[in-house]
């Protein structure tokens, strides 16, 4: 499983890691029961602080996506079967939204920018609520 992070993007590295793990699960690169890359090895490979990886895995555990077993590592939790249904619904929502924005005359870059802003605000909302 190849993970890339951009330390200079402004987005905290642990959030980037979480996103990549979630994306990997959604696309099937990581399956239920499989182990996430070992903490130390990932930190050394990416040359990032190990505490960052610790935090990412811990947050993922909070969200119920992974399970951290002492001494063994982090493993992907068994997800409800309804997961696939949610993905398909989400895909159709996205499709219609993009079509409507394009019909309103927006270019690809403008649509992407709008989406990124909304996502950033969503993230803030999520994080602030928890802390």
């Amino acid at each position, binding site marked *: 499983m190849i993970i890339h992070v951009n330390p200079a993007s*402004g987005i905290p590295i*642990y959030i980037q890691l979480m996103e990549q793990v979630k994306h990997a699960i959604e696309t099937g690169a990581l399956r239920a029961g499989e182990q996430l890359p070992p903490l*130390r090895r990932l930190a050394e490979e990416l040359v*990032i602080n190990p*505490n960052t990886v610790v935090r990412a895995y811990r947050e993922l555990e909070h969200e119920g996506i992974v399970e951290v077993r002492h001494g063994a590592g982090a493993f992907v939790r068994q997800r409800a079967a309804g997961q696939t249904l949610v993905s398909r619904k989400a895909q159709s929502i996205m499709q219609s939204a993009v079509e409507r924005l394009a019909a309103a005359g927006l270019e690809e870059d403008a649509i992407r920018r709008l989406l990124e802003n909304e996502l*950033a605000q969503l993230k*803030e909302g999520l*994080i602030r609520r928890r802390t």
Partner: protein
Amino acid sequence: MTECAIEAVALRKSFKRHEALCGLNLNVPRGSVFGFLGRNGAGKTTTIRILMGLAKADQGEARIFGIAPGDDDSGALLRRRIGFVPEDKELYPYMTVEEVIRFSRPFFPHWRDDLERRYLKAFDLPPKKKIPELSKGMRSKLMLLLATARGSELLILDEPTDGLDPVVAEEVLRELIVLSSSDGTTIFFSSHQLAEVEQVADRITIIDQGRSIISGELEDLKQQYQRIKVVFADGIPADIRWAQGADRIRNEGRMVSILSGRNSDEIMAQARALPGTSVDTYPVTLRELFLELMRAD
């Protein structure tokens, strides 16, 4: 007390007419990778000199593992536990790589042969080569070997990747990460390479004009600080109370660019409440944060 690798309280130091440190506070927990940032002349080197016992603070206290650094016996014993790489990575010109390692070994009862072997191999250091013949990258790597193989619990590094090409710099950073994760070595380093600091540090302090202006866990700071851009369709109003508490405010045409720390939520809510505004927020990189904080008020 032993939770802290380095602790400095209200350090003051002046040279003739120049006040290098004006009440600097530092708190470096054990096991952290701590980035010490600041412009040239901000007081970084002076602080490091005081920590290494090379200079004495006029006022205030500095302690490493609870012990005051200095030139007495306890200070000398303390240096057994600290590895130091200074800004000028110079070593004795009449020694070879092998000789300087053999020279250093007897001083340290906890010398790590395994680290010595590992770095000699990983860094590809030629043992019989004379030190002045080594390239800058090689010398930096040799100094890192000497600093870590002594079995140090704390590394104090002044610009460890200065002048190194990206490949060597990455090697050095990787070894620092390995040290931190496998041995729990505390790493305190000063650097101008903000991207690298962002990569490996978990805590930072930014120092300016002898004082610490921002301090804390890096990930928290990056989350806390936001850039908020507010565009006023009808021009920027004179009343800026909505932006109260922002760290930096800049006007550009019809747009106000704000760097905010603690009050991001309030400012955003207030900005959105104003008529004819479009509000966007962007995450802030360490480099942007640094540059903004250095910009004169």
